């Protein structure tokens, strides 16, 4: 009975802590257990200041994907970001991607504004229309100079 007890307690411990681990890694760590089918889309920005890999891609405030890779185009001196978009979300050719900040000093994310064209962006396609990150300093200085 005593030995059974030990096994039971150890089992309980393992279950409880593995559940914690699962919650941490799946919910917080964005590990996709059942990987949702996605397709890849890239976009070019003159500046992405502060955007990180793993950042959220939103459409109308709803999460539709994430940034998987960030690279620098060495010829054009532009940033290229690759995103994984949920495959049940269709994006039009003239979709616009913008880099935004959550709140005033929050995390950077990619905001998608849908377009009106009939043609859709396919896998490994590119979003042509982009709007770079607006830095807080620029905004502030603009405001100050204009008011002068």
């Amino acid at each position, binding site marked *: 009975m005593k030995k059974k007890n030990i096994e039971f307690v*150890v089992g309980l411990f*393992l279950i409880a*802590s593995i559940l*914690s681990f699962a919650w*941490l*890694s799946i919910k917080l760590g964005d590990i996709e257990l059942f990987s949702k089918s996605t397709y890849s889309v890239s976009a070019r920005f003159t500046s992405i200041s502060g955007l990180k890999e793993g950042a959220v891609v939103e459409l109308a405030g709803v999460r539709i994907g994430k940034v998987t890779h960030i690279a620098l185009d060495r010829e054009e001196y532009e940033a290229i970001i690759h995103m994984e978009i949920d495959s049940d979300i269709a994006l039009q050719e003239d979709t616009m991607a913008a880099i935004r900040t959550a709140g005033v*000093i*929050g995390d950077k994310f990619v905001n998608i504004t849908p377009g009106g064209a009939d043609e859709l962006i396919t896998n490994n396609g590119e979003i042509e229309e982009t709007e770079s990150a607006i830095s807080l300093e620029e905004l502030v200085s603009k405001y100050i100079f204009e008011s002068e």
Partner: protein
Amino acid sequence: MRNFVEKTGRETIYYVEHAGMMTIFLCSCLIRIFTRPFQLRAIIKQLHFIGAKSVFIIIVAGSFTGMVLGLQGYYVLQRFGSLDMIGSAVALSLIRELGPVLAALMVVGRAGSAICAEIGIMRTTEQIDALECMGIHPYKYLMVPKFIAAIISLPLLTCLFDVMGILGGYFAAVVLFGVNEGSYFQGMYSSVVWADIEMGLIKSFVFGLIIVWVATAKGFFLHLDRSGAFGAEGVSRITTKAVVLSSVAILGSDYLISAILL
């Protein structure tokens, strides 16, 4: 003057020798993890001792740590009007730093000291000699199950600590101070990435190794300790040393791992 030089030399030799001995001990134990037989029953027993029996203290410590983080976070972030960041502040500090470190320190106090005393007592009462004389290797029979159990338990306990901390933070921030529940969890979801969790896991894995290593080696080499004390006094002295050493080693290696991984 000559006396001083002599003494310094002796000290240095002692510490270098001691470090070498401990390292060889660690390596032999680690190698033996992969040799047969795999003592499942002994491992379960140690999982019970190191892991399961620490759950209560981890839950208590975790929730209070999370509550303190929620409380402090609330007062600090409120000044900047960034209360929506409280979730990520609590979660990030728990997952990256406080979870692994505090869980490890709890286990040092609860299991590390007990393991060290147990091995030390086995040494002073000739039980380790008896094992050797029965043709049973003490590393394999005594140490390996503890190593395996600690390496498994620590990451798991850390996860438990993190979750309890997040819930504690939730209690303080959301229930007590009325921060919006959605912003608490959404901030957390969007800011924590897998790399943070991975870092916490790597840390807790290393801490687990440090805890058993220091505890078992200190107990095992009790008879070689410079203080020369044997018996009950030796055990108590060596246990204190093991707790201090492993706590310091945990904090030191925490910095090193953070510096390497960041």
